[in-house]
């Protein structure tokens, strides 16, 4: 049994920071949420819509809001505060909080300034605004009730949440906030007097004011460093503090001049996004870190910086990213809440004309990852493609071998870029995404592909259970069971507004059944779109984030806040959950009812209503004899592709009303495939209620009996496979967002150099035949069982779940069992 990966080669400085971090609640210092109110009666501090995609916390909304309010410090605001626009109030408020309200600390040995950033702030609404907003959101029949019912009835969930984008960090490194400040001033001056007085002018002024926040904060930290330096007795440390003070006098206001300054600039710029959104690290991602930091790295190396010093700066950066988790450090959580927030960055990948972009910094960053691992943030995602060098693959496979949850995700360029180009065509934005620039895509959060610096694709905002359409098809638009309000246990009224697609007795062929299913799929997509649309409009009116807007191209130019659709590229991603369960259910209907005639559709429906009790033989046939997705079975996979096209095409039909954002398809399931398994009734594929659904684009657990290559081939095929007129280099991809795919390997595949070559061959093959993104787990069931029994011995054991890393000991028992089952079935 291999040992659990432990960090190594940490200097005393980094070792201290690392160990200090893992002291958790016992730490003297932390980055827990600090709350600030405007002092207005019933001020609202907590944006519940951010959490509509986190059903676990639905019951805490009122508590959170009240608790934050009670603990909030009241800011002293200028008399004219409420006469300013909402965006300007927000910019002012956040700036004042970060510059004056939040304590500043430099931890021992730390080489980067910027410690506390988790804040919860007044939404700065006037009483009239608060009243209106309250009516829309938490009033009777408000959005909150609608979201609850949507989730309780197993449709899924949706909500406009924060983060999940790549701000234009390289522009700050190159031009500094001063450059942005001046540019926004120029844009403002070009406005007509009427525009200046209107919302456009207000938004621009807010973005410009937001640019002053990092300047003033850096100045304050600079002073802090000078003060510490004065008292510091250690010569070396004093020199460091003086250099930090000097750095902060330059960045992020001015362009970065060397590597240390670049990383310092990046950190302050980044952490303030989380402050601005009042949400720690939700997929606010860095993009192609090894590409845009390279010039600074090379310059510093040329000027005599040694590699270990450069790595030391990066390791401090790693530490800071992890402090995002302090936000709710004393609040116990479960099933994913304590898992990766997803400050993602990409390494390597393709450049123009298919050339490989791996560079010296790529390998340095991989070294940092390896030495710091296991640690949750920031999350690396290595981009592979046909021309990825052997040296890189060797390094990657070596690192996979040495850690249980591979310390990074793998993204596959050709397939991913095919999806982005499909998106450009569908959305008519070929001027912004085309073969000349698509290689510069990057991923956010877990693995969601976007462009960099000008793109918000709302990658986790809509999570749709496709399986609901199966239930509605079998019920002729009615549900197969009574659903209950999960907070109070009250039954929901049985009525649903789904179309009547025919009593099941009337279907004489599988094609007729599928046509009815297609109508129900269209219905559930429309239902989600309409619900989201209302929330999107509310956010656009009430929740500007001017600082973030200042960092995303398109916002200042259009004079729109990013929440109003200001980004050049704006998409809302519908992440389909339960894909394989749905496909397998269709395959089972075809096999049981129409091909083998083992039962009628009504009997099958009765079996599902009875949760298969009394229908065990039929259930066994559904599980073991019906075809399944994930076996490289052409017929089964063809149906998977058909379902993919159906829902993806339907998704492209919609845009948001208030912000003009185009809906786009993706597949990521976070932890919903577990929780929704308890909500949705039994399904025709043999799954009983309470069993998990399929995860993202993965086959149903245990269905991939032909091994990892067959599994990968099926996934690639479902996305569209390859064809002569493919979206990119012959590759097709229906999902521009990408699709989460996890494969668990037994440790034997990494035990020798010869075996590791085989894993490399698998990765090269995956680039041809597989999906957009792959997560590899290397664990054996025995180790996981031991970890379940002795969690204290395995506090550092990371496993991958749907695109995020999670500490095995911290996730719920059900999820642990699921991961063990997943592993064991690979052992045959």
């Amino acid at each position, binding site marked *: 049994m291999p040992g659990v990966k432990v960090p190594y080669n940490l200097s005393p400085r980094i070792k201290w920071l690392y160990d200090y971090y893992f002291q958790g609640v016992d730490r003297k210092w932390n980055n827990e949420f600090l709350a600030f109110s405007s002092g207005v009666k019933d001020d609202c501090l907590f944006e519940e819509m951010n959490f509509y995609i986190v059903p676990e916390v639905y019951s805490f909304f009122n508590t959170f809001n009240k608790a934050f309010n009670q603990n909030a410090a009241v800011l002293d605001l200028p008399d004219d505060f409420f006469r300013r626009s909402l965006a300007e109030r927000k910019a002012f408020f956040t700036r004042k909080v970060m510059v004056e309200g939040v304590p500043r600390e430099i931890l021992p040995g730390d080489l980067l300034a910027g410690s506390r950033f988790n804040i919860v702030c007044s939404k700065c609404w006037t009483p009239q605004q608060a009243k209106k907003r309250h009516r829309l959101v938490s009033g009777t029949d408000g959005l909150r009730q609608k979201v609850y019912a949507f989730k309780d009835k197993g449709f899924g969930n949706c909500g406009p949440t924060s983060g999940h984008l790549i701000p234009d960090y390289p522009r700050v490194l190159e031009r500094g906030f001063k450059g942005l400040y001046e540019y926004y001033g120029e844009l403002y001056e070009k406005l007509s007097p009427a525009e200046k007085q209107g919302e456009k002018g207000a938004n621009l002024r807010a973005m410009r004011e937001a640019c002053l926040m990092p300047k003033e904060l850096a100045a304050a930290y600079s002073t802090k460093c000078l003060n510490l330096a004065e008292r510091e007795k250690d010569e070396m440390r004093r020199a460091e503090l003086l250099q930090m003070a000097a750095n902060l006098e330059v960045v992020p206001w001015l362009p970065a001049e060397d590597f240390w300054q670049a990383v310092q600039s990046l950190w302050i710029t980044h952490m303030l996004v989380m402050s601005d959104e009042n949400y720690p690290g939700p997929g606010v991602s860095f993009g192609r870190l090894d590409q845009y930091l390279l010039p600074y790295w090379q310059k510093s190396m040329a000027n005599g910086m040694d590699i270990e010093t450069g790595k030391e700066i990066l390791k401090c950066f790693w530490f800071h990213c992890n402090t995002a988790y302090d936000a709710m450090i004393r609040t116990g959580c479960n099933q994913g809440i304590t898992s990766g927030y997803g400050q993602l960055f990409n390494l390597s990948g393709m450049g123009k004309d298919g050339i490989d972009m791996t560079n010296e910094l790529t390998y340095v960053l991989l070294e940092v990852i390896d030495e710091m691992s296991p640690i949750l943030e920031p999350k690396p995602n290595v981009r592979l493609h046909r021309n990825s060098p052997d040296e890189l693959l060797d390094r990657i496979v070596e690192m996979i071998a040495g850690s249980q949850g591979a310390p990074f995700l793998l993204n596959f360029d050709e397939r991913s870029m095919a999806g982005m180009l499909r998106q450009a065509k569908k959305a008519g934005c070929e001027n912004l995404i085309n073969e000349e620039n698509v290689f510069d895509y990057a991923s956010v959060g877990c693995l969601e592909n976007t462009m960099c610096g000008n793109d918000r694709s709302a990658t986790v905002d809509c999570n749709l259970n496709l399986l609901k359409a199966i239930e509605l098809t079998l019920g002729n638009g009615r549900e197969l069971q009574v659903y209950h309000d999960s907070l109070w246990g009250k039954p929901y009224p049985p009525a649903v507004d789904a179309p009547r697609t025919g009593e099941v007795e009337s279907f004489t062929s599988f094609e007729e059944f599928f046509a009815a299913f297609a109508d129900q799929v269209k219905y559930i997509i429309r239902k989600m779109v309409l619900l989201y649309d209302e929330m999107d409009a509310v956010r656009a009116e009430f929740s500007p984030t001017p600082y973030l807007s200042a960092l995303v191209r398109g916002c200042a130019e259009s004079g729109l806040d990013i929440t109003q659709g200001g980004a050049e590229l704006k998409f809302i991603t519908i992440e389909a959950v339960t894909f394989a369960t749905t496909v397998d259910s269709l395959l089972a209907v075809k096999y049981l009812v129409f091909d083998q005639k083992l039962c009628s559709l009504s009997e099958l429906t009765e079996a599902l209503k009875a949760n298969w009790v009394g229908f065990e033989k039929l259930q066994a046939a559904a599980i073991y*004899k019906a075809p399944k997705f994930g076996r490289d079975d052409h017929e089964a996979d063809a149906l998977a592709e058909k379902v993919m096209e159906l829902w993806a095409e339907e998704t492209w039909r919609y845009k948001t009303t208030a912000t003009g954002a185009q809906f786009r398809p993706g597949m990521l399931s976070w932890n919903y495939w577990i929780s929704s398994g308890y909500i949705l009734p039994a399904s025709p594929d043999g799954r009983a209620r309470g069993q998990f659904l399929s995860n993202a684009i993965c086959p149903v657990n245990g269905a991939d009996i032909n091994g990892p290559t067959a599994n990968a081939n099926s996934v690639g095929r479902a996305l569209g496979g390859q064809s002569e007129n493919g979206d990119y280099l012959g590759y097709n991809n229906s999902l521009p967002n990408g699709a989460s795919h996890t494969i668990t390997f037994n440790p034997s595949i990494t035990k020798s150099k010869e075996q590791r070559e085989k894993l490399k061959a698998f990765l090269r*093959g995956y680039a041809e*035949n597989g999906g957009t993104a792959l997560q590899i787990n290397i664990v054996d069931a025995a180790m996981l069982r031991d970890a379940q029994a002795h969690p204290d011995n395995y506090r550092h054991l990371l496993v991958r779940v749907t695109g995020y890393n999670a500490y095995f000991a911290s996730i719920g028992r059900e999820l642990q069992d699921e991961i063990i089952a997943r592993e064991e079935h690979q052992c045959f």
Partner: protein
Amino acid sequence: MLLKPPVNVLNIQRMSTEDGPGLRTTLFLKGCNLRCAWCHNPESIDARPVVQWNKVRCIGCRSCNDVCQNGALRLTERGIFIAAENCSLCLDCVEECPSGSLNVKGEDFEVEKLFTELLKDRAYFGEDGGVTISGGEPLLQPEAVTWLLEALKKTGINTALDTAGLVNTDLFLRALQHADLLLYDIKLMDDAEHRRHTGGGNARILDNLVKAAPFLKESGKRLWIRTPVIPGATDSKENIRAIAVFLAGPVGDAVERWELCAFNNLCLHKYESLGRDWAYKDTALVTDQAMNELLLLAASELKSSGIELHGTGSTRSTSTSEE
């Protein structure tokens, strides 16, 4: 032009990591002319289909028992027992079993369809990987094997043939024309012992290898020898030394590597599924110490032959072996 009868297939194993270099698809053909007492694929021996019962999947519905006309199935305390001597292979029970708990091993494939199936993982083969044809004894179906190897080669796929070698020399050499790698078993050097443990003598096996060796060397094909290390059967120092001497001698030039594969008991459930007893069911794994001694011995005999020596498989550590 060769005939193309249907191929009697036991299993197609994708992403195989143990049947040659790189990632491979291994085709296991059904039927064997040896009866090795330790056989790890007992379901591969009989050329006819075999019905087997999978305990884990059984839901206890007894549909199989109801449908069997020949009294070949017995419900016992340990589950379903299949009396092979009564089974007419009508497969009614397999058809009726809802969970696939009763299933049949052995399926006829058209050779073209099989060929398509073997190409599905082409993207993963890379330069090293490819297709391995194994068994049972694959060369009991020489036409199909030769046709497949030739077709695969023409398509640019790296090919390997895994045989125990107790076959007609001409057919063996003909098939070998189209293989890039020969995986060849040498189990025991003593003919009488070979007979006792495997049911067949080793004269032809050794002779075939001697005949193939010059051709392999000339044409740049690779040869890997495999020896199962079976407690009480093949694991004696005399046997390993004798094999080493043979390898370093008449065929040595052609051999690239020699694997000593330590015994494991992972196939016990297969015997249970088939309702058969297994002589090795209580046999412990080879100790790491014993394995190391055999490897050292082999290495000293091979000396400067240039043959790579590998030890594979599970062993138990000496420190816990006395428990």
